[in-house]
Protein backbone atom coordinates (compact mmCIF):
# COMPACT_ATOMS: atom_id res chain seq x y z
CA UNK A 1 0.00 0.00 0.00
CA UNK A 2 1.36 3.38 -1.00
CA UNK A 3 1.58 5.45 2.19
CA UNK A 4 3.16 8.54 3.65
CA UNK A 5 4.61 8.89 7.11
CA UNK A 6 1.46 10.63 8.38
CA UNK A 7 -0.62 7.60 7.43
CA UNK A 8 1.87 5.21 9.00
CA UNK A 9 1.60 7.20 12.22
CA UNK A 10 -2.18 7.04 12.01
CA UNK A 11 -2.07 3.27 11.54
CA UNK A 12 0.26 2.97 14.49
CA UNK A 13 -2.02 5.08 16.69
CA UNK A 14 -5.02 2.99 15.71
CA UNK A 15 -8.33 4.03 14.23
CA UNK A 16 -7.51 3.29 10.60
CA UNK A 17 -9.92 0.87 9.00
CA UNK A 18 -10.87 -0.42 5.61
CA UNK A 19 -14.60 -0.81 5.23
CA UNK A 20 -17.34 -1.50 2.77
CA UNK A 21 -20.11 -3.85 1.81
CA UNK A 22 -19.71 -6.72 -0.63
CA UNK A 23 -20.70 -4.53 -3.57
CA UNK A 24 -18.84 -1.41 -2.50
CA UNK A 25 -15.52 -0.12 -3.67
CA UNK A 26 -13.34 -0.39 -0.56
CA UNK A 27 -12.47 2.76 1.35
CA UNK A 28 -9.77 3.36 3.93
CA UNK A 29 -10.76 5.71 6.73
CA UNK A 30 -8.51 7.49 9.16
CA UNK A 31 -10.11 9.47 11.98
CA UNK A 32 -10.78 12.40 9.68
CA UNK A 33 -10.43 11.41 6.03
CA UNK A 34 -11.94 8.89 3.64
CA UNK A 35 -9.89 7.45 0.77
CA UNK A 36 -10.94 5.17 -2.08
CA UNK A 37 -8.59 2.19 -2.36
CA UNK A 38 -7.42 1.56 -5.91
CA UNK A 39 -5.24 -1.21 -7.18
CA UNK A 40 -2.53 -0.20 -9.61
CA UNK A 41 -1.24 -3.00 -11.79
CA UNK A 42 2.22 -2.95 -13.27
CA UNK A 43 3.88 -4.90 -16.04
CA UNK A 44 6.97 -4.92 -13.84
CA UNK A 45 7.79 -7.62 -11.35
CA UNK A 46 8.59 -6.60 -7.81
CA UNK A 47 10.46 -8.87 -5.47
CA UNK A 48 10.25 -8.13 -1.77
CA UNK A 49 13.03 -9.11 0.57
CA UNK A 50 12.98 -9.06 4.36
CA UNK A 51 15.02 -6.51 6.32
CA UNK A 52 17.83 -8.92 7.08
CA UNK A 53 18.51 -9.65 3.41
CA UNK A 54 19.84 -6.21 2.57
CA UNK A 55 23.39 -6.96 3.66
CA UNK A 56 23.47 -9.90 1.30
CA UNK A 57 22.35 -7.71 -1.58
CA UNK A 58 24.78 -4.87 -1.09
CA UNK A 59 28.42 -5.62 -0.82
CA UNK A 60 27.70 -9.19 0.24
CA UNK A 61 30.25 -11.91 0.27
CA UNK A 62 30.56 -14.29 -2.66
CA UNK A 63 28.55 -17.02 -1.03
CA UNK A 64 25.85 -14.95 0.65
CA UNK A 65 22.28 -15.60 -0.39
CA UNK A 66 19.45 -13.10 -0.39
CA UNK A 67 16.01 -14.65 -0.31
CA UNK A 68 12.98 -13.24 -2.04
CA UNK A 69 10.09 -13.38 0.43
CA UNK A 70 7.29 -12.32 -1.87
CA UNK A 71 6.49 -11.31 -5.42
CA UNK A 72 4.12 -8.52 -6.41
CA UNK A 73 2.98 -6.95 -9.63
CA UNK A 74 0.54 -4.42 -8.27
CA UNK A 75 0.13 -2.09 -5.35
CA UNK A 76 -2.72 -0.22 -3.65
CA UNK A 77 -3.11 3.51 -3.93
CA UNK A 78 -5.30 5.88 -1.90
CA UNK A 79 -7.31 8.70 -3.41
CA UNK A 80 -9.13 11.06 -1.09
CA UNK A 81 -12.87 11.00 -1.75
CA UNK A 82 -15.99 12.55 -0.31
CA UNK A 83 -17.61 10.41 2.40
CA UNK A 84 -20.40 8.19 1.09
CA UNK A 85 -23.29 9.33 3.20
CA UNK A 86 -26.30 8.25 1.19
CA UNK A 87 -26.41 4.96 3.04
CA UNK A 88 -26.53 6.82 6.36
CA UNK A 89 -29.52 8.82 5.26
CA UNK A 90 -31.25 5.70 3.96
CA UNK A 91 -30.60 3.84 7.22
CA UNK A 92 -31.80 6.60 9.49
CA UNK A 93 -34.69 7.92 7.44
CA UNK A 94 -36.22 4.50 6.89
CA UNK A 95 -38.04 4.71 10.24
CA UNK A 96 -38.28 8.33 11.35
CA UNK A 97 -39.25 8.59 14.98
CA UNK A 98 -42.82 9.81 15.22
CA UNK A 99 -43.47 9.56 18.93
CA UNK A 100 -44.01 6.91 21.58
CA UNK A 101 -47.03 5.54 19.73
CA UNK A 102 -44.99 4.33 16.80
CA UNK A 103 -45.32 0.68 15.86
CA UNK A 104 -42.44 -1.29 17.37
CA UNK A 105 -40.16 -2.30 14.53
CA UNK A 106 -36.82 -3.41 15.80
CA UNK A 107 -35.84 -4.87 12.45
CA UNK A 108 -34.99 -1.64 10.69
CA UNK A 109 -33.32 0.15 13.57
CA UNK A 110 -29.55 0.41 13.82
CA UNK A 111 -27.19 1.40 16.58
CA UNK A 112 -24.10 3.55 16.34
CA UNK A 113 -21.70 0.62 15.94
CA UNK A 114 -23.65 -0.80 13.00
CA UNK A 115 -23.78 2.62 11.36
CA UNK A 116 -20.05 3.10 11.82
CA UNK A 117 -19.31 -0.31 10.33
CA UNK A 118 -21.53 0.17 7.33
CA UNK A 119 -21.15 3.83 6.32
CA UNK A 120 -18.04 4.61 4.29
CA UNK A 121 -16.96 7.74 6.11
CA UNK A 122 -14.37 8.69 8.70
CA UNK A 123 -15.48 9.12 12.32
CA UNK A 124 -15.20 12.89 12.04
CA UNK A 125 -17.22 12.97 8.83
CA UNK A 126 -19.77 10.60 10.32
CA UNK A 127 -20.22 12.74 13.45
CA UNK A 128 -20.71 15.80 11.32
CA UNK A 129 -23.28 14.03 9.15
CA UNK A 130 -25.16 12.73 12.19
CA UNK A 131 -25.30 16.26 13.64
CA UNK A 132 -26.55 17.64 10.34
CA UNK A 133 -29.25 14.97 10.22
CA UNK A 134 -30.23 15.70 13.80
CA UNK A 135 -29.74 12.08 14.83
CA UNK A 136 -30.09 11.06 18.48
CA UNK A 137 -29.95 7.81 20.37
CA UNK A 138 -33.14 6.17 21.66
CA UNK A 139 -33.12 2.72 23.22
CA UNK A 140 -29.78 1.89 21.66
CA UNK A 141 -30.78 2.88 18.14
CA UNK A 142 -29.86 5.99 16.19
CA UNK A 143 -33.04 7.82 15.25
CA UNK A 144 -34.05 10.87 13.32
CA UNK A 145 -37.35 12.43 14.30
CA UNK A 146 -39.95 12.98 11.60
CA UNK A 147 -40.18 16.70 10.89
CA UNK A 148 -43.86 16.74 11.88
CA UNK A 149 -43.22 15.14 15.27
CA UNK A 150 -40.16 17.24 15.89
CA UNK A 151 -42.08 20.42 15.28
CA UNK A 152 -44.88 19.15 17.45
CA UNK A 153 -42.48 18.58 20.35
CA UNK A 154 -40.74 21.91 19.77
CA UNK A 155 -44.07 23.72 19.78
CA UNK A 156 -45.12 22.08 23.03
CA UNK A 157 -41.74 22.77 24.57
CA UNK A 158 -41.86 26.45 23.65
CA UNK A 159 -45.42 26.92 24.97
CA UNK A 160 -44.67 24.84 28.05
CA UNK A 161 -41.66 27.01 28.84
CA UNK A 162 -43.79 30.10 28.30
CA UNK A 163 -46.63 28.92 30.50
CA UNK A 164 -44.26 27.74 33.25
CA UNK A 165 -42.65 31.15 33.16
CA UNK A 166 -39.22 29.93 32.15
CA UNK A 167 -36.84 32.31 30.44
CA UNK A 168 -36.12 30.99 26.98
CA UNK A 169 -32.46 31.75 27.62
CA UNK A 170 -32.51 29.43 30.64
CA UNK A 171 -34.86 26.53 30.08
CA UNK A 172 -34.47 23.84 32.73
CA UNK A 173 -34.41 20.42 31.13
CA UNK A 174 -35.90 18.55 34.08
CA UNK A 175 -38.71 21.06 34.44
CA UNK A 176 -39.86 20.85 30.84
CA UNK A 177 -39.45 17.09 30.72
CA UNK A 178 -41.75 16.65 33.69
CA UNK A 179 -44.32 19.08 32.37
CA UNK A 180 -44.36 17.52 28.93
CA UNK A 181 -44.51 14.02 30.27
CA UNK A 182 -47.60 14.86 32.28
CA UNK A 183 -50.01 15.42 29.41
CA UNK A 184 -48.63 13.24 26.67
CA UNK A 185 -45.59 11.13 27.20
CA UNK A 186 -42.68 12.64 25.40
CA UNK A 187 -39.50 10.65 25.88
CA UNK A 188 -36.87 12.61 27.73
CA UNK A 189 -34.35 11.67 25.02
CA UNK A 190 -36.61 13.43 22.51
CA UNK A 191 -36.89 16.52 24.69
CA UNK A 192 -33.14 16.60 25.09
CA UNK A 193 -32.68 16.18 21.36
CA UNK A 194 -34.98 19.14 20.65
CA UNK A 195 -33.21 21.25 23.27
CA UNK A 196 -29.83 20.35 21.73
CA UNK A 197 -31.04 21.03 18.22
CA UNK A 198 -32.60 24.41 19.01
CA UNK A 199 -30.20 25.85 21.54
CA UNK A 200 -27.18 28.06 21.26
CA UNK A 201 -24.02 25.95 20.87
CA UNK A 202 -22.47 25.07 24.23
CA UNK A 203 -25.50 26.42 25.99
CA UNK A 204 -25.68 23.49 28.38
CA UNK A 205 -22.64 24.73 30.24
CA UNK A 206 -24.52 24.87 33.53
CA UNK A 207 -25.71 21.32 33.03
CA UNK A 208 -29.43 20.92 32.57
CA UNK A 209 -30.22 24.49 31.58
CA UNK A 210 -30.53 25.45 27.94
CA UNK A 211 -30.42 28.76 26.16
CA UNK A 212 -32.70 28.52 23.14
CA UNK A 213 -31.58 29.92 19.80
CA UNK A 214 -34.67 32.02 19.19
CA UNK A 215 -33.91 32.55 15.51
CA UNK A 216 -33.63 28.84 14.92
CA UNK A 217 -36.87 28.16 16.81
CA UNK A 218 -38.70 30.85 14.90
CA UNK A 219 -37.40 29.49 11.60
CA UNK A 220 -38.89 26.09 12.46
CA UNK A 221 -42.31 27.71 12.80
CA UNK A 222 -41.82 29.49 9.48
CA UNK A 223 -40.90 26.17 7.85
CA UNK A 224 -44.21 24.72 8.98
CA UNK A 225 -46.11 27.67 7.51
CA UNK A 226 -44.28 27.47 4.21
CA UNK A 227 -44.92 23.73 4.06
CA UNK A 228 -48.63 24.33 4.61
CA UNK A 229 -48.89 26.90 1.85
CA UNK A 230 -46.15 27.43 -0.75
CA UNK A 231 -47.08 31.02 -1.64
CA UNK A 232 -47.73 33.75 0.85
CA UNK A 233 -48.09 37.48 0.75
CA UNK A 234 -45.16 38.39 2.96
CA UNK A 235 -47.07 40.43 5.51
CA UNK A 236 -49.69 37.71 5.89
CA UNK A 237 -46.94 35.19 6.48
CA UNK A 238 -45.33 37.41 9.08
CA UNK A 239 -48.66 37.94 10.84
CA UNK A 240 -49.60 34.27 10.99
CA UNK A 241 -46.10 33.40 12.04
CA UNK A 242 -46.25 35.80 14.98
CA UNK A 243 -49.57 34.31 16.06
CA UNK A 244 -48.20 30.83 16.41
CA UNK A 245 -45.37 31.68 18.74
CA UNK A 246 -45.31 33.13 22.24
CA UNK A 247 -44.67 36.84 22.53
CA UNK A 248 -41.15 37.99 22.16
CA UNK A 249 -40.13 35.48 19.53
CA UNK A 250 -38.37 37.04 16.51
CA UNK A 251 -40.25 37.39 13.26
CA UNK A 252 -38.35 38.70 10.23
CA UNK A 253 -37.80 38.18 6.52
CA UNK A 254 -34.16 37.45 7.20
CA UNK A 255 -35.07 34.28 9.06
CA UNK A 256 -36.71 32.95 5.91
CA UNK A 257 -33.34 32.47 4.18
CA UNK A 258 -33.06 28.89 2.97
CA UNK A 259 -36.84 28.38 3.30
CA UNK A 260 -38.42 30.78 0.89
CA UNK A 261 -37.51 33.31 -1.76
CA UNK A 262 -38.86 36.83 -1.51
CA UNK A 263 -40.02 38.35 -4.74
CA UNK A 264 -42.43 41.08 -5.72
CA UNK A 265 -45.72 39.60 -6.98
CA UNK A 266 -45.83 39.66 -10.78
CA UNK A 267 -49.40 40.94 -10.95
CA UNK A 268 -48.89 43.49 -8.20
CA UNK A 269 -45.21 44.46 -7.92
CA UNK A 270 -45.64 46.42 -4.69
CA UNK A 271 -46.71 43.29 -2.84
CA UNK A 272 -43.81 41.18 -1.60
CA UNK A 273 -44.33 37.46 -1.82
CA UNK A 274 -42.70 34.58 -0.05
CA UNK A 275 -42.35 31.57 -2.30
CA UNK A 276 -41.46 28.24 -0.76
CA UNK A 277 -37.95 27.12 -1.75
CA UNK A 278 -36.56 24.79 0.85
CA UNK A 279 -32.85 24.00 1.05
CA UNK A 280 -33.57 20.58 2.50
CA UNK A 281 -35.65 19.63 -0.54
CA UNK A 282 -32.97 20.44 -3.11
CA UNK A 283 -30.63 17.80 -4.58
CA UNK A 284 -27.57 17.16 -2.43
CA UNK A 285 -25.09 16.65 -5.24
CA UNK A 286 -23.51 19.97 -6.26
CA UNK A 287 -24.09 19.71 -10.03
CA UNK A 288 -27.77 18.89 -9.61
CA UNK A 289 -28.23 21.51 -6.91
CA UNK A 290 -26.82 24.31 -9.02
CA UNK A 291 -29.00 23.16 -11.92
CA UNK A 292 -32.07 23.40 -9.67
CA UNK A 293 -30.99 26.82 -8.38
CA UNK A 294 -30.51 28.27 -11.84
CA UNK A 295 -33.77 26.73 -13.03
CA UNK A 296 -35.46 28.76 -10.31
CA UNK A 297 -33.58 31.99 -10.92
CA UNK A 298 -31.07 32.93 -13.61
CA UNK A 299 -29.18 35.34 -11.39
CA UNK A 300 -28.62 35.26 -7.66
CA UNK A 301 -27.34 37.74 -5.15
CA UNK A 302 -24.99 36.10 -2.67
CA UNK A 303 -27.25 36.87 0.28
CA UNK A 304 -30.00 34.78 -1.31
CA UNK A 305 -27.71 32.11 -2.73
CA UNK A 306 -25.61 31.48 0.38
CA UNK A 307 -28.12 29.42 2.39
CA UNK A 308 -28.48 27.03 -0.55
CA UNK A 309 -24.77 26.59 -1.32
CA UNK A 310 -23.08 26.58 2.08
CA UNK A 311 -24.68 23.28 3.23
CA UNK A 312 -22.96 21.51 0.30
CA UNK A 313 -19.66 21.74 2.15
CA UNK A 314 -19.07 18.26 3.57
CA UNK A 315 -15.52 18.97 4.63
CA UNK A 316 -13.68 17.81 1.50
CA UNK A 317 -11.54 20.19 -0.56
CA UNK A 318 -13.83 20.08 -3.59
CA UNK A 319 -16.98 21.03 -1.67
CA UNK A 320 -15.64 24.24 -0.19
CA UNK A 321 -18.03 27.07 -1.05
CA UNK A 322 -15.58 29.16 -3.06
CA UNK A 323 -14.49 26.09 -5.02
CA UNK A 324 -18.12 25.25 -5.86
CA UNK A 325 -18.86 28.82 -6.91
CA UNK A 326 -15.87 28.85 -9.19
CA UNK A 327 -16.88 25.56 -10.73
CA UNK A 328 -20.61 26.08 -11.23
CA UNK A 329 -21.19 29.83 -11.45
CA UNK A 330 -19.91 32.93 -13.09
CA UNK A 331 -19.90 36.38 -11.56
CA UNK A 332 -21.91 39.08 -13.25
CA UNK A 333 -21.58 42.74 -12.41
CA UNK A 334 -24.40 44.67 -14.06
CA UNK A 335 -23.95 47.63 -11.69
CA UNK A 336 -20.55 48.84 -10.58
CA UNK A 337 -21.79 50.01 -7.17
CA UNK A 338 -24.01 47.02 -6.44
CA UNK A 339 -22.62 43.68 -5.27
CA UNK A 340 -22.05 41.09 -8.05
CA UNK A 341 -24.61 38.48 -9.05
CA UNK A 342 -24.04 34.82 -9.77
CA UNK A 343 -25.21 33.17 -12.98
CA UNK A 344 -24.90 29.76 -14.54
CA UNK A 345 -21.42 28.92 -15.76
Amino acid sequence: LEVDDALLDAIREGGVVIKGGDDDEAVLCTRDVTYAVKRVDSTNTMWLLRPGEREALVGGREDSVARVAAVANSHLELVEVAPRLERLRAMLLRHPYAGPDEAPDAAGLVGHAAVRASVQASDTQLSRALRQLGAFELDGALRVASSAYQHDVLNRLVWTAFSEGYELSAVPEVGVCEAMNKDEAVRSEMVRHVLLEFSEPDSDVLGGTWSLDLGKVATAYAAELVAEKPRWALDQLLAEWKERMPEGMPVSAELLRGLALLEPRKEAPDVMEAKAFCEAALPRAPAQRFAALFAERARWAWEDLGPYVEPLDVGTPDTKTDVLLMRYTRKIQPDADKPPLYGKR
Partner: protein
Amino acid sequence: MVVQMRCGCGACDEWAMVELQGEVRLQVEDSGAQPHELDLGEFCADQGSGKAAFTIGYHRLQGKEEKLKRPLAILEAAPDDGAQGARVLQVVGVIRRKFIFRDRPRALITPRDAATLRTKKKPGADFFAAARKKAKADSLQ
Protein backbone atom coordinates in the same frame (compact mmCIF):
# COMPACT_ATOMS: atom_id res chain seq x y z
CA MET B 1 -17.40 -5.35 6.80
CA VAL B 2 -14.67 -3.61 8.73
CA VAL B 3 -11.00 -4.52 8.53
CA GLN B 4 -8.79 -3.04 11.22
CA MET B 5 -5.37 -1.85 10.18
CA ARG B 6 -2.55 -2.27 12.65
CA CYS B 7 1.18 -2.09 12.88
CA GLY B 8 2.50 -5.58 13.39
CA CYS B 9 5.88 -6.59 14.73
CA GLY B 10 8.64 -4.95 12.74
CA ALA B 11 6.22 -2.57 11.05
CA CYS B 12 8.87 0.13 10.89
CA ASP B 13 11.55 -2.19 9.54
CA GLU B 14 12.71 -1.42 6.05
CA TRP B 15 12.41 -4.23 3.53
CA ALA B 16 14.33 -4.35 0.29
CA MET B 17 12.80 -4.48 -3.16
CA VAL B 18 14.12 -5.49 -6.54
CA GLU B 19 12.06 -4.39 -9.51
CA LEU B 20 12.42 -5.81 -12.99
CA GLN B 21 10.66 -4.87 -16.16
CA GLY B 22 8.64 -7.77 -17.49
CA GLU B 23 8.61 -11.16 -15.91
CA VAL B 24 11.10 -13.79 -14.95
CA ARG B 25 10.32 -17.18 -16.46
CA LEU B 26 11.61 -20.59 -15.65
CA GLN B 27 13.90 -22.05 -18.32
CA VAL B 28 13.73 -25.36 -16.60
CA GLU B 29 10.24 -26.70 -17.20
CA ASP B 30 9.77 -29.32 -14.56
CA SER B 31 12.95 -29.84 -12.70
CA GLY B 32 10.89 -30.77 -9.68
CA ALA B 33 12.49 -27.91 -7.74
CA GLN B 34 10.23 -26.08 -5.33
CA PRO B 35 9.87 -22.33 -5.98
CA HIS B 36 11.69 -21.46 -2.81
CA GLU B 37 14.69 -23.51 -3.80
CA LEU B 38 15.19 -21.87 -7.15
CA ASP B 39 18.34 -19.98 -7.83
CA LEU B 40 17.19 -16.74 -9.42
CA GLY B 41 20.49 -15.26 -10.37
CA GLU B 42 23.50 -13.33 -9.24
CA PHE B 43 23.13 -9.89 -7.80
CA CYS B 44 25.82 -7.33 -7.32
CA ALA B 45 25.43 -3.82 -5.95
CA ASP B 46 27.88 -1.11 -5.17
CA GLN B 47 27.06 0.77 -1.98
CA GLY B 48 28.75 3.98 -3.01
CA SER B 49 27.40 4.57 -6.49
CA GLY B 50 24.12 2.71 -5.96
CA LYS B 51 24.67 0.87 -9.22
CA ALA B 52 23.62 -2.73 -9.46
CA ALA B 53 23.98 -5.62 -11.85
CA PHE B 54 21.88 -8.74 -11.96
CA THR B 55 22.53 -11.85 -13.99
CA ILE B 56 19.50 -14.06 -14.53
CA GLY B 57 20.00 -17.06 -16.72
CA TYR B 58 21.85 -15.76 -19.76
CA HIS B 59 20.65 -12.19 -19.32
CA ARG B 60 22.53 -9.45 -17.60
CA LEU B 61 20.65 -6.42 -16.28
CA GLN B 62 22.06 -3.08 -15.26
CA GLY B 63 20.25 -0.93 -12.79
CA LYS B 64 20.53 1.22 -9.71
CA GLU B 65 19.10 1.87 -6.35
CA GLU B 66 16.43 4.58 -6.12
CA LYS B 67 14.44 6.11 -3.34
CA LEU B 68 10.71 5.58 -3.76
CA LYS B 69 8.70 8.74 -4.29
CA ARG B 70 6.22 7.43 -1.73
CA PRO B 71 6.98 4.58 0.64
CA LEU B 72 5.09 1.31 0.34
CA ALA B 73 3.75 -0.46 3.40
CA ILE B 74 3.73 -4.24 3.24
CA LEU B 75 0.43 -5.63 4.44
CA GLU B 76 -0.27 -9.07 5.72
CA ALA B 77 -3.58 -10.52 6.77
CA ALA B 78 -3.31 -11.36 10.45
CA PRO B 79 -5.11 -14.32 11.94
CA ASP B 80 -8.64 -13.36 12.91
CA ASP B 81 -8.82 -11.45 16.13
CA GLY B 82 -11.03 -13.96 17.88
CA ALA B 83 -13.74 -11.49 18.80
CA GLN B 84 -16.46 -12.16 16.20
CA GLY B 85 -13.80 -13.08 13.70
CA ALA B 86 -12.73 -9.48 13.28
CA ARG B 87 -10.38 -9.12 10.35
CA VAL B 88 -7.04 -7.43 10.71
CA LEU B 89 -4.47 -6.25 8.18
CA GLN B 90 -1.04 -5.72 9.63
CA VAL B 91 1.76 -3.56 8.37
CA VAL B 92 4.79 -5.84 8.60
CA GLY B 93 7.34 -3.64 6.92
CA VAL B 94 8.01 -0.58 4.83
CA ILE B 95 9.83 -0.19 1.51
CA ARG B 96 11.56 3.13 0.99
CA ARG B 97 14.19 2.22 -1.60
CA LYS B 98 14.34 -0.22 -4.47
CA PHE B 99 16.83 -1.65 -6.91
CA ILE B 100 15.32 -1.07 -10.30
CA PHE B 101 16.51 -2.51 -13.57
CA ARG B 102 15.23 -0.48 -16.47
CA ASP B 103 17.85 -1.03 -19.14
CA ARG B 104 17.26 -3.63 -21.81
CA PRO B 105 18.79 -6.96 -20.72
CA ARG B 106 21.99 -7.93 -22.46
CA ALA B 107 22.31 -11.51 -23.65
CA LEU B 108 25.53 -13.12 -22.57
CA ILE B 109 25.37 -15.84 -25.19
CA THR B 110 25.12 -15.77 -28.95
CA PRO B 111 21.68 -15.87 -30.61
CA ARG B 112 22.47 -19.36 -31.92
CA ASP B 113 23.13 -20.67 -28.47
CA ALA B 114 19.93 -19.01 -27.28
CA ALA B 115 18.00 -20.86 -29.99
CA THR B 116 19.63 -24.09 -28.90
CA LEU B 117 18.58 -23.37 -25.33
CA ARG B 118 15.00 -22.92 -26.35
CA THR B 119 14.82 -26.36 -27.96
CA LYS B 120 16.54 -28.20 -25.13
CA LYS B 121 14.37 -29.24 -22.21
CA LYS B 122 17.08 -28.98 -19.61
CA PRO B 123 20.27 -27.07 -20.33
CA GLY B 124 23.49 -28.21 -18.79
CA ALA B 125 24.66 -26.55 -15.61
CA ASP B 126 27.96 -25.71 -17.30
CA PHE B 127 26.01 -23.53 -19.73
CA PHE B 128 25.07 -21.05 -17.06
CA ALA B 129 28.40 -21.31 -15.30
CA ALA B 130 30.06 -20.14 -18.50
CA ALA B 131 27.65 -17.22 -18.72
CA ARG B 132 28.26 -16.25 -15.11
CA LYS B 133 32.00 -16.46 -15.57
CA LYS B 134 31.73 -14.00 -18.42
CA ALA B 135 29.55 -11.71 -16.29
CA LYS B 136 32.13 -11.77 -13.51
CA ALA B 137 34.85 -10.95 -15.97
CA ASP B 138 33.10 -7.66 -16.80
CA SER B 139 33.62 -5.35 -13.88
CA LEU B 140 30.98 -3.03 -12.52
CA GLN B 141 32.44 0.22 -13.84
